[in-house]
């Protein structure tokens, strides 16, 4: 296969089209605009639809329409745009419509800035819209994963009939690395539930309204059952040099790349350090955390946010191990040096292994 140098944002679009995506409705925003631009270039060439909508609100409701009509469809945005899309994401989860949303995060709150941050975790992973729903969330940390996880996102969206978010930061979207794509394009079949303007699909209805409380409760329980299956089957995490590790660094996206560099250096110094990288943020890879907790002394969460994933790590560990936290925000990146310094400090501490401890949270 051909290795090509490509931006993460472009890799998403090419992977999406190879996965059968034939609709893109979006609104420009830095640092996600290259996705929209690449979609504008390629989708019309493959018989797909590209439309720059009047707003993110309109764009996500166009996804609702395209998905209802049975087409694999996606959009891309960043922080403020994702906030505007929450209405449609809730409707799509309620109406059980599949779609893929790329969130190339930037600094917030408000207009914030356009530098990379990870402050969208809560609004994406916890569901920023109303009602009892979840989105499945994948977190690539390389350009190759931008391609691979986008393909996976379309499959998961169809399998669970639910929106799936590819959550990447501005760095992963903007950087170029070699990437390989599968040789052949796929063409998914029209789903049976789609409203396609045909005799066979005439009796179909796409809706999220259940006026009777009993019916809505049954619907919400059915969504819950779906999410439960996803939790059992789809949680993924990468363990990097965790054999024998006493200190495990936890991060996703660009942070995970920095953590690998830090861990490599720490290992060279003889420190027992590994990296646990959640690949799915929902479902959260709770089991991997619990397994590692049996032999690891301390976890160090590093985030470009004020501690949003940190909450899920604490929930997963449930107090079994102490959790340290290092945070940079505003578009600043945790430096190699500051992480390494924390790792050295923790490695010096002689904490007893395999005994529950009181959780200690440090801010650096």
């Amino acid at each position, binding site marked *: 296969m051909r290795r090509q140098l490509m931006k993460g944002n472009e890799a998403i679009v090419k992977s999406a089209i190879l996965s059968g995506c034939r609709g893109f409705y979006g609104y420009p925003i830095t640092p996600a605009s290259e996705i929209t631009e690449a979609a504008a270039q390629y989708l019309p060439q493959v018989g797909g639809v590209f439309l720059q909508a009047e707003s993110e609100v309109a764009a996500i409701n166009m996804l609702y329409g395209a998905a209802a009509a049975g087409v694999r469809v996606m959009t891309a945005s960043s922080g403020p745009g994702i906030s505007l899309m929450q209405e449609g994401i809730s409707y799509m989860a309620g109406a059980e419509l599949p779609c893929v949303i790329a969130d190339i995060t930037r600094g917030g709150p408000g207009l914030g800035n356009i530098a990379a941050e990870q402050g969208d975790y809560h609004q994406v992973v916890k569901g920023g819209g109303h009602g009892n729903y979840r989105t499945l969330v994948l977190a690539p940390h390389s350009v190759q994963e931008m391609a691979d996880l986008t393909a996976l996102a379309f499959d998961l969206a169809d399998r669970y009939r639910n929106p799936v978010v590819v959550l990447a930061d501005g760095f992963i979207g*903007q950087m170029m690395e070699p990437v390989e794509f599968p040789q052949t394009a796929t063409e998914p079949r029209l789903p049976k539930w789609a409203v396609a303007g045909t005799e066979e699909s005439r009796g179909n209805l*796409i809706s999220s309204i259940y006026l009777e409380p009993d019916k809505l409760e049954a619907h919400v329980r059915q969504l819950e059952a779906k999410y439960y299956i996803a939790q059992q089957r789809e949680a993924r995490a990468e363990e990097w040099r965790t054999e024998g590790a006493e200190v495990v660094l936890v991060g996703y996206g660009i942070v995970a790349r920095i953590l690998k560099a830090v861990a490599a250096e720490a290992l060279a110094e003889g420190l027992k350090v590994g990296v646990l990288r959640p690949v799915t943020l929902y479902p959260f890879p709770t089991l991997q955390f619990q397994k590692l907790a049996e032999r690891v002394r301390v976890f160090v969460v590093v985030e470009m946010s004020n501690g949003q994933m940190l909450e899920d790590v604490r929930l997963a560990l449930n107090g079994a191990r102490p959790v340290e936290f290092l945070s940079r925000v505003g578009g600043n990146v945790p430096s190699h040096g500051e992480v390494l310094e924390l790792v050295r400090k923790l490695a010096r501490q002689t904490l007893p292994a395999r005994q529950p401890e009181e959780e200690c949270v440090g801010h650096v």
Partner: protein
Amino acid sequence: MSNATEAEYEVAHGRPKAFYENFERKDELQHQTHYCPGCGHGIVHKMLAQAIDELGIQNRTILISPVGCSVFAYYYFDVGNVQGAHGRAPAVATAVKRSQPQSIVIGYQGDGDLAAIGSAEILHAANRGENITIIFVNNAIYSMTGGQVAPTTLLGQRSTTTPNGRSAANEGYPLHVSELLATLEAPVYIERVGLGDNRQVAQAQHAVRRAVENQVRGLGFSLVEVLSPCPTIWKMSPVEAQHWVREVMEKTFPLGAFRDRTKDAPAKAAPPAAPALEDISRILGVADEGAVEEIDAEAKGAVDLQVRVAGFGGQGVLLLGEVLAEAGLHAGLQVSWLPSYGPEMRSGTSNCHVRLAREPIDSPLVVHPDVLVAMNEPSLHKFCASVPRVGGFFTTARQCRRNVSGKTCISWRARSRMWPTSWATDGPATW
């Protein structure tokens, strides 16, 4: 009468086939609609169903239900049904139509839905000339939520949120949607009709059919605004409400066609056919053909080169980094290129991180570059401290050239353990 057979009577106005025989999606009273006595929705529904029958498009039709009293339009229409979010029917309809161009997509909206929360979506769908049909039922009030002021509420008209009547000073003037949309180039057909009396109803039926037929003919965007009675919220009898449409509403909202290019509008071109599936890799430029041979794939030896390129925007800073990365890729190395990006503005500075390595690259961030390429003086000052003592500078800044030997390269010393052997030197060199 009781002995009459079907053969003796011709059914002039039967139940349209586009309606379900029994409204099974409704929880109870499945033989009747949920609309109040005297409500205009029932009449408009029947017009639409008849148009679908007459045009023979039942299998192709997709109805987009709004939020409002007609949220349950899908109880009644035996067509494909999609129920959308408040005000978003034109956005939903846009994508349904573009995804299934053979379908006939009809958006059905009330005045709160279309003229208030959905004002952006209707304006832009109309402006794009989407080949869809919008039925806009204007009863000058939010009915389903209990009678709040709408953009189309008349001046002086009382509502639960304008208890003393709508005032121009506080709520502005009634919004004339049809006139507004008729200022746009793209729409093919925009007409306002009323349900004020039988003559008006007949005219309305004609307009609804035309708006759907335009789409069947592929002409483009059509909208029919229907002035429609709401006896319950208006607190009138059905007959009084009908009179009110004709005698009061019509004064603010005059009937008529505001755009009619039905006769001369050309049919829109069909979307181009999709390419064969096996051609898609080539179209995307990811097929094997044209793959560049890796020219130095056999080379061994440790390589871990970290480069930072910095300068003004427009100097080719990012391009230089990209060329480096591309060269590394062709030499069989692992590479990464990471730009610092900023808003598009004058005097912006620019820099990028490039790594070339034999082993997989962990962090693409270059904190301590082996080589700094500084294309201007501010970049040199900003980044020179980040270059380790044994690192190299490569600068075009004039001041530095003056300071150091007048050469473009002021210092060049390799870390031989990191660099390809062919690049390694023992001491400072000049380029």
